[in-house]
């Protein structure tokens, strides 16, 4: 049955209240098939959409409620949902009509009536809604019951005390045992929302109710499955076997076409794993989670993004889910930027000795793309890869040197930043490339890259022939540099002096810098550090040397890893906004 294409675009024009009122009144006399009034109502709805206030037409619009056309009724209802709350004194005009519809023979009409009434949560409407709602919760038609279930949630939001006192929450709990799966899933959704509120009713599941809900799972719609699966987090398994049986029952849902069903199912499985002992079962389930997650990557980019941000968390907690699949996270050229950045992060996490070569080749490709942020992150990933996978460090350094050759400013700067960390990780191995870095000194104008380069010069001043000349140049602009760079210059000047204490230039530099820092700089950190160095050098240069050039703690990629407790908390919110921003919703503001 093909729907006829409408022709209503012409109604999107700003209209005057008086004109619409006049048109409605004129139509009352002669309007066979009600076309005239239908037209005016459409114009009014279009105006509401555009943000124009149509509320003065309340009484005129409400007059149309008697017309036996569903299309007109729905437009009037839309009007009421928009303006009903603001028109408490006039709303009583529509209540008789609503009440009549609540006992209409047609279940669609009954459901429409209570649904609409519950969207106007002002006291006079709520009072009238109470009795019909009570009947509808026990209606013989499941469509009416499922609508009534959501109405209870709306009522509770408007007036929690009344909802509880009238026994609606209890009736909602009864609906959990309804024979119709759609009714059950809406009741679950309503109870979950009510149960999540600060002020009140507790909604927890015991094993019996949880099993009843699982029975409804197979017959529910995709959205109903999400509501039911979500609620299973309210069940606390008492025995390992309970958790294991439940997991086995829901694992088939991983094959659902709707990615929200898949992610919610994964959320529950990860939760249940905390209570399971059977290692084999845990591994089996982890392996089953991988393929559906990868399949989501051929869905729309928005859903891909949600999946990717969650995969980043999941693989930290359960690495066996996606051990060998780094290639599926390679970026497609036309992926939106948010997908590319998310994939990049995962590629890095999945990089190991076995796949490092392929990952590096990919990263090199990305470093030649056009989005600056993406390119910088790719370059940074090459550096992190060198630190993470020792066997790949040679190839990574080679790649970084090639990148410096390109002379693209942001690429060179990012490379310098990352090379500093590689030096710290592998002391003594790559310092041979320092001359090449020094050649590109002029390009570095960002604080982070400049500071990194200064650190390198200071740390390896003994191996750089013209270190003192370089430092002389760099300190020339000391007073105009940002604090980050000044700190680095300070420390490096001291190191230079300690390495090359015979050099007159080095002496002049360190003297100059210390004087500036202690006499002309306001920043307390810099000043204090300057005083400290001065005193150390004055009292005992040898000991100063030992302190300043002491062996640094090994740099690792451990800081990349999220704290286990925080990770587990986040995984309880798999698939939600919190899991995308990696912020625990209980902690953050919103």
């Amino acid at each position, binding site marked *: *049955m093909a729907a006829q294409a409408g022709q*209503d675009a012409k*109604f999107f024009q700003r209209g005057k209240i008086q004109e619409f009122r006049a048109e409605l009144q004129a139509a009352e006399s002669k309007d066979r098939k009600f076309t005239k009034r239908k037209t005016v109502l459409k114009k009014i709805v279009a105006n509401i959409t555009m943000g124009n206030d149509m509320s003065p037409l309340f009484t005129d619009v409400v007059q149309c409620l008697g017309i*036996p056309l569903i299309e007109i009724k729905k*437009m009037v209802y839309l009007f009421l949902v928009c303006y009903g709350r603001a028109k408490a004194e006039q709303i009583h005009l529509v209540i008789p009509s609503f009440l009549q519809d609540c006992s209409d023979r047609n279940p669609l009409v009954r459901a429409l009536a209570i649904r609409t009434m519950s969207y106007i949560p002002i006291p006079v409407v709520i009072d009238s809604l109470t009795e019909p709602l009570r009947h509808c919760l026990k209606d013989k038609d*499941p469509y009416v019951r499922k609508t009534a279930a959501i109405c209870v949630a709306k009522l509770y939001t408007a007036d929690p005390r009344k909802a509880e006192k009238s026994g609606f929450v209890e009736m909602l709990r009864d609906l959990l045992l309804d024979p119709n799966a759609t009714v059950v899933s*809406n009741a679950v959704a309503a109870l979950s929302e009510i149960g999540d509120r600060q002020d009140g009713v507790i909604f927890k599941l015991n094993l019996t109710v949880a099993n009843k809900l699982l029975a409804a799972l197979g017959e529910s719609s995709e959205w109903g499955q999400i509501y039911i699966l979500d609620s299973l987090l309210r069940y606390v398994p008492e025995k390992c076997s309970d958790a294991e049986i439940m997991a086995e029952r829901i694992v088939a849902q991983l094959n659902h076409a709707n990615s929200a069903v898949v992610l919610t199912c994964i959320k529950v499985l990860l939760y249940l794993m905390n209570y399971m002992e059977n290692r084999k079962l845990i591994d089996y389930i982890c392996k089953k989670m991988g393929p559906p997650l990868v399949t989501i990557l051929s869905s729309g980019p928005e859903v891909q993004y949600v999946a990717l941000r969650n995969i980043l968390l999941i693989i930290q907690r359960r690495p066996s889910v996606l051990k060998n699949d780094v290639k599926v996270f390679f970026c497609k050229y036309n992926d939106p930027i948010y997908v590319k950045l998310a994939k990049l992060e995962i590629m890095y996490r999945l990089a190991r000795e076995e796949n490092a070569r392929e990952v590096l080749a990919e990263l090199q490709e990305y470093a030649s793309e056009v989005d600056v942020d993406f390119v910088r992150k790719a370059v940074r990933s090459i550096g992190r890869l060198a630190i993470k996978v020792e066997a790949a460090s040679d190839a990574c350094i080679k790649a970084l040197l090639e990148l410096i050759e390109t002379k693209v400013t942001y690429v060179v700067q990012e490379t310098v930043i990352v090379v500093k960390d590689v030096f710290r990780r592998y002391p003594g191995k790559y310092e041979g490339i320092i001359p090449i870095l020094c050649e590109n000194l002029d390009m570095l104008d960002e604080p982070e890259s400049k500071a990194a380069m200064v650190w390198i010069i200071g740390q390896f001043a003994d191996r750089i022939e013209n270190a003192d000349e370089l430092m002389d140049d760099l300190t020339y602009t000391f007073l105009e540099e940002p604090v980050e760079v000044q700190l680095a210059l300070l420390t490096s000047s001291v190191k230079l002096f300690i390495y090359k204490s015979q050099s007159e230039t080095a002496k002049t530099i360190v003297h100059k810098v210390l004087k500036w820092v202690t006499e002309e700089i306001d920043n307390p950190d810099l000043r204090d550090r300057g005083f400290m160095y001065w005193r150390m050098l004055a009292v005992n240069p040898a000991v100063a040397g030992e302190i300043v050039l002491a062996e640094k703690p090994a740099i690792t990629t451990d800081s990349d890893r999220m704290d286990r407790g925080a990770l587990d908390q986040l995984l309880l919110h798999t698939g939600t906004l919190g*899991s995308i921003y990696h912020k625990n919703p209980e902690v953050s503001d*919103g």
Partner: protein
Amino acid sequence: MISAFFIFNQKGEVLISRLYRTDLKRSIADVFRIQVVSNSDVRSPIVTLGSTSFFHVRINNLYVVAVTKCNANAALVFEYCYRFIAIAKSYFGKVDEEAVKNNFVLIYELIDEINDFGYPQNSEIDTLKTYITTESIMSTASAVEESSKITTQATGATSWRRADVKYKKNEAFVDVVETVNLSMSAKGTVLRADVDGHILMRAYLSGTPECKFGLNDKLVIDKNDHGLGDAVELDDCRFHQCVRLDEFDSQRTISFIPPDGEFELMRYRSTSNVKLPLRVIPTVNEIGTTQVSYVVTVRTNFNNKLSATNVVVRIPTPLNTTTVDCKVANGKAKYVPAENVVVWKIPRIQGGAEVTFTGTAQLTSTTHRQVWARPPIDVDFQVLMFTASGLIVRFLKVFEKSNYHSIKWVRYLTKASGTYQIRF
């Protein structure tokens, strides 16, 4: 859940506005317009400001937007937006500003039905079309009986199918549509090659037929130990809600009662033994700083009874290209300056054949050397009656209590659309 739903046009004007909750005002639409529509560099499909999050999906010249105030299930919100778009497509043919404005009343009815208080409700297109239509429904006695059938379907275990479907000719059409994803390195090695498959079915079958669907799925074959010819290894399968998931989980049988009409039965992914239907061999040389020479050969890798159609090869050119002289024996090639590509269109390439493009791009001199980013060569194509994964439908059995005879047709299509990339 979802507090509000909006549709905006490109200018940020509101075409549809529906608040499901009272924790937002209509004026929130202005925030979206300023933060997203007017922003030239939006880098996420979710924009969160304080406690309000705007989830948006772009389709043609529209923004479909869902707004939440809580820690919403993000996947659910986007899937809901996708579903709305699918419903709109089915009702109106296309989803753009014109279609939305022309049918806004129906859209308001739909979004009142498929979402209650921010919770998505039944959104099966088939069911919706039985009671949300452009034809006015009078509230009469006969309407009551119809409505009971509708409500049963809308809340039933087979909510996707009416009980009283009748056809004179019982037919079922199966379309296996595979999209090949290829990323090939400049050296000619395959970086990644996988297949995203969709099996679409059009079921015009009477009554309540039970269907069983069989593929040359490796896991099935291993179980039965028949060793019949080539098996396809499916990495993952995802099914329409009508398929009995636990039967698939335990025995790999795909059994279902289909919805009436058109629907997507399953989606799958295959990454092993992917047959690449087209092989592209590019030779691109930069001659000094003034010219780039191209020799691009496309070879088809399948039976000569089949052919690749609608082949479009997009060959990137440097940004400072002025002209490209193109020589092709098959199809037409043209330089498109606005996109920095040469577009080579070949209507048909037979299996086992080879076609070549030769050309030279002239470059203007530039003041500063910019390394050419070299985006990959992109190939779009279609090959009928071919599957890159090797998947074959082995059987489709239909059982209905009246035991009628039904005709079944299976077609295969392999295509690439922005997913077949060859670096050079």
